[in-house]
């Protein structure tokens, strides 16, 4: 059994453990925490979209919170104004967020790098006032309240558990989607476009199409996440979508690992639980930690927590192989066979 298959086994075991942990959450925790985990799952979907855009395609977006908000409001509006079933609103949420993503993504093609950061930052700042301004549709500062979906008869569990399961399904779908997307040719095109324009073009990658598609997909996923969030939360208002939400998603993406699917969960858990925990001690603490984390991550662990774990795994694997190699050399020298 060589190092590579040990690593694959470890990864598979890790995924299985993670899946198991996610499944038993409702059984392990009180209702309010289950609700928070549900929220974390929706955030994880948004972060996943960001990973797709930033990690795999190299375009920066400080406006993920805005697309998230668009999805959330779409769901809220269609549920309350048009009495639509909550599940049906989700594709529409994806659609509206994607359209906005297209509108931003097209000029974004000319704004690679720093200018894209400025523009998306400006968008994030513009979001809340815009939500307030469009009061006829968004109900302004009052916000929109929705009735949370009733638990279907075939489901054994209370409403929080049901909503949690819904979010879990949503996350699983998103994770599978991103996993498939980044594995094959699309993944290669994405990464080529990120690393080098020249190489990408020589590989026959259509840079504009790939970049635009990545941007639209990222915003669509944020819309999906936002829609789910609205359903779980039962309430949307500009308060929940301040500029800091976009920063939160950015932090979540960086900490978890900008190209990691499981990392999005870690990042999401961080941004859901850290502010509450830190606020108990000092209102400024979560800001300090976020700031420090972002800076330190860029200095020593650019691939986030999952990247660190991955490096550890590789280091372990190299050590195992190295020890084996020296052992083999030794026993050749001494003419003996050594059992490992």
């Amino acid at each position, binding site marked *: 059994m060589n190092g590579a298959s040990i690593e694959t086994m470890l990864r598979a075991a890790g995924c299985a453990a993670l899946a198991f942990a996610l499944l038993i959450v409702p059984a392990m925790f009180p209702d309010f925490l289950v609700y928070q985990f549900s929220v974390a799952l929706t955030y994880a979907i948004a972060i996943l979209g960001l990973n797709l855009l*930033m990690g795999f395609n*190299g375009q*920066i977006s*400080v406006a993920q919170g805005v697309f998230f908000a668009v999805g959330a409001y779409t769901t809220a509006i269609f549920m309350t104004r048009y009495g639509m079933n909550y599940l049906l609103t989700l594709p529409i949420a994806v659609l509206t967020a994607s359209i906005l993503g297209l509108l931003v993504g097209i*000029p974004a093609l*000319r*704004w*690679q*790098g*720093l*200018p894209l*950061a*400025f*523009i998306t*930052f*400006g*968008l994030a*700042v*513009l979001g809340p*006032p*815009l939500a*307030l*301004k469009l009061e006829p549709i968004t109900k302004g500062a009052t916000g929109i309240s929705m009735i949370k979906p009733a638990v279907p008869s075939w489901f054994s569990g209370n409403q929080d558990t049901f909503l949690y399961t819904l979010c879990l399904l949503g996350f699983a779908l998103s994770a599978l989607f991103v996993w498939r997307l980044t594995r094959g040719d699309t993944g290669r095109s994405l990464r080529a476009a990120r690393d080098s324009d020249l190489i990408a073009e020589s590989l026959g990658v259509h840079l504009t199409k790939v970049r635009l598609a990545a941007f639209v997909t990222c915003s669509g996923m944020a819309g999906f996440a936002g829609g789910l969030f609205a359903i779980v939360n039962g309430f949307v208002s500009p308060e929940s979508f301040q500029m800091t939400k976009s*920063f939160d998603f*950015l932090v979540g993406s*960086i900490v978890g690992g900008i190209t990691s699917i499981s990392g999005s969960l870690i990042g999401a858990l961080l941004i859901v639980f850290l502010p509450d925990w830190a606020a108990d001690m*000092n*209102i*400024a*603490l*979560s*800001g*300090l930690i*976020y*700031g*420090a*984390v*972002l*800076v330190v*991550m*860029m*200095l020593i662990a*650019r691939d986030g927590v999952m990247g660190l774990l991955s490096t550890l795994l590789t280091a372990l694997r190299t050590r195992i192989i190295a020890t084996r190699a020296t052992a083999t050399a030794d026993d050749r020298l001494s003419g003996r066979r050594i059992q490992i």
Partner: protein
Amino acid sequence: MTIRSFAKLTLVPDMQLFLQQIVEGLASGAIYASLAIALVLIYRATRIVNFAQGEMATLSAYFAWQLNQWGMPFWLSLIIVAAVSFVMGALVFRLIMRPVLGASDNTMVVVCIGLFVGFEAVALWFWGADPHAFPRIFPDYAWTIGGVRLTANNLGILATLCLLTVGLSALFRYTRIGLAMRASAAEREKSPLVGIPVENMLMLGWGLAATVGFIAAALIAPSLFLSPPMMVSVVIYALAAATLGGWDSLAGAIVGGLVVGIAESLCATFIGFIGTDLKVGVPFALMAIVLLARPQGLFGTSAVIRA
């Protein structure tokens, strides 16, 4: 010729309101321009756009305020904190930016956002969220000319900005060290070959920009009241101002700031949909237009965009 007869000639319905809005726009524009100058300065000296410039400046302003609260004469606290800001900027460069110098744009952006969040949190930690009154630098006079009100504060800020720009431009153009700073920013690899200690130059640039940022904060704080997120709303305007003016032009930062200020003021007053609610859409729209139509800005020579 009076204002009214001029108005009749140009068919502007309420000339007085129009002119007043222009003056208001110039006042807020001066505020945006102050931060923009610090941003452009850092860019010219180090090719980095430091999102956190405003937050670092706010922290410096808090230092000055605190010293003053403890009984130090205001002018002395300004001088001391100007020096402290320089050291702070140089340290931030040395400890945090230097290790990531060669990294991608995106990494830099993330680090700067980290500094942004972190510095605001530090101010929040020590001084809380409540706004404080900041001592005035300029006396409280105002003049009314032809129905339009000009304050000593506005003029004072504009004058200070002009002085700063002239001084800094002269530094960059006519001095040996200014040349070395520009070379270190533009040609990081070649500059050591002529004996320029590049990292020291970059550190100098950051220190200088931090001091300029502090001056901006001290100019702004009397009007906006000192609080941790004081500069947060200014940052987007300053970014738009610098983009409009051109990232490698200090004079452009002033012009850009004033244009953004006037545009915002006029749009807020005369375009109903925007009003005061969506004022922040004005810098956003301006920035988007400039980046699409003329990426290098009005006075810039090369685009920030690396094609």
